């Protein structure tokens, strides 16, 4: 996993042709907090900065506050405390001016059950007083085409599969040219093929210069398409920044396979490597520890001098998964 990380090379921090507020962030929040009735703090003092042109992965386990944050960004939920700025406009005042530039998918798609997909999109477009009715038909066809949903035709939304619904939701977000896409778990319910298509779509949109704010609990999604990442945990934004920078800043580890793990641990301890861990394996055990600035060159001779038989010795940079787990806790612990 460690070597296979795909980090898009260049991060564009502002579009050259951005009309207004060229240097402002696409999304900025200050001290954003939501305390629901009943006292539950779903989002806790979040300061978010999503640069224009970035693909921002908003990571966090279920219940960590991603959707609530997104609802506040879009003016659906009023923050208890804090400020939101979208495309340079302060929310909620600027909602009317800003939202036509924003395509959104919030906590799954939702449409009128008794209308077909295209009829549902026509309804969304009719609701938009700033959209041009004379181009509606073509824009709807284009949007459906973009998410490969042209064959669904006149079927009622009720009869759509989960994957088709998700695609229709994406099509609604793409009904007109956007500056910013806010996508809450966009691959939920999609099969692997659909998941790949959505990733390709997000990449293509980002290549067009759109800012994409993508919430997910799937690391692969972030690794494959995101330039930036923010990690939520129980309502707090525990880390945020450029993905490559975050990963580069993580502590490298050494990993070695040996038949004599106790001796290896003693040696590593002696050299000052912190908290070595042993994982039993078939034949040889794997010992790993944070390098803590110790040169790898010192390790092998020390181990050999102590008579520890080494089958394999590598330096590992933690990938996003390890970073994520270190930030949000292991496994399925439900924290709220």
């Amino acid at each position, binding site marked *: 996993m460690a070597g296979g990380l795909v980090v898009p090379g260049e991060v564009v921090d502002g579009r050259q042709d951005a009309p207004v507020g060229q240097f402002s962030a696409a999304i900025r929040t200050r001290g954003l907090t939501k305390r629901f009735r009943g006292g539950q703090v779903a989002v806790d003092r979040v300061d978010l900065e999503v640069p224009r042109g970035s693909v921002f992965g908003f990571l966090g386990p279920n219940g960590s506050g991603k959707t609530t944050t997104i609802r506040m960004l*879009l*003016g*659906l939920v009023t923050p208890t405390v804090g400020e939101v700025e979208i495309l340079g406009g302060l929310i909620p005042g600027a*909602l009317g001016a800003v939202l036509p530039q924003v395509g959104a998918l919030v906590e799954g798609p*939702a449409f009128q059950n*008794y209308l077909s997909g295209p009829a549902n999109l026509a309804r969304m477009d009719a*609701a938009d*007083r700033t959209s*041009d009715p004379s181009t509606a038909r073509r824009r709807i066809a284009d949007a459906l085409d973009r998410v490969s949903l042209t064959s669904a035709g006149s079927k009622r939304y009720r009869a759509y599969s989960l994957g088709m619904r998700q695609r229709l939701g994406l099509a609604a977000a793409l009904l007109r040219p956007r500056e910013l896409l806010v996508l809450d778990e966009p691959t939920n319910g999609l099969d692997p093929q659909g998941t790949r298509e959505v990733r390709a779509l997000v990449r293509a949109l980002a290549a067009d210069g759109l800012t994409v704010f993508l919430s997910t609990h799937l690391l692969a999604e972030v690794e494959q398409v995101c330039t930036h990442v923010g990690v939520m945990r129980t309502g707090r934004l525990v880390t945020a920044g450029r993905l490559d920078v975050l990963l580069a800043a993580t502590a490298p580890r050494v990993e070695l396979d040996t038949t004599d793990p106790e001796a290896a641990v003693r040696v590593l301890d002696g050299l000052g490597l912190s908290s070595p861990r042993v994982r039993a394996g078939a034949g040889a055990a794997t010992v790993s520890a944070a390098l803590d600035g110790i040169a790898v060159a010192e390790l092998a001779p020390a181990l050999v001098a102590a008579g520890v038989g080494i089958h394999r010795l590598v330096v590992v940079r933690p990938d996003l998964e390890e970073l994520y787990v270190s930030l949000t806790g292991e496994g399925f612990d439900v924290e709220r």
Partner: protein
Amino acid sequence: MSSGRSVGARFLRSELRLVFGRRRNQMLLVALAAAPVLIGVAVRLSSPTSAQGAPGFVARISQNGLFLVFTAMAVTLPVLMPLAVAVVAGDSIAGEAHSGTLRYLLVVPVERTRLLVVKYVGIVTYGLVAAFVVAAAGWLTGLVLFPSGPVTLLSGDTVPYLDALGRAGLVALYAGAMLAGLAAIGLFLSTLTEVPIAAMASIAGVPVVSEILDAVPALSAIHPYLFTHWWLAFGDLLREPIATAGIRHGLGVQAVYIAIFGALAWARLTTKDVTS
């Protein structure tokens, strides 16, 4: 691009298509249309003498089929029409919240006030159409089953058939207007819940409660302020000259209810966290 107003009208047209395209809402209109047909057939089949003791309009149906319009209106306005309006009104906001489409309308963006206005116009239009459906079905059934010709009004004057038909149109218009207050109450109740069926049931209960209060003599002081109190004042349209006092009261009370519950709905929806 067309003017701001016509762009706003697009959403309203789309909303009306949604309301009237919904099979359930169509079936309710069909049920309403069936009421005058059933009454007409029943009156036709019953012996002339049995109609003697019948109150108000029913006795006149066998003389002139146009009275089927007024009879059907008097029968459906207190119960059936409010029920149909309750279904559409209950669905208005709660239905969108329940299906999750409310959040997507709001991020389109549809300003919350505009959403309320469009939803309200949709409910009122449905009530008006319901009243005209009853009137039209009553008129056609009357034409088929009973004699038509000059109409003797409640005041004893006789007017040409077309004049009376015009009054039937006014009666339908008045009935539709009488549902506008209930539509506002319904819109408000619909902002309180994400369960459309709960909204529908409670809205349907409101006119019933009002009519019960209206029937309690001890409460006669509040009767003029009940939104159902003037509903059947449309009989005044069948006098020569037309007596306007009851009609004006009826319209005035509806206006007050529209103002109060419209404001409540606005206060509720514009401050509501949309978490559905």
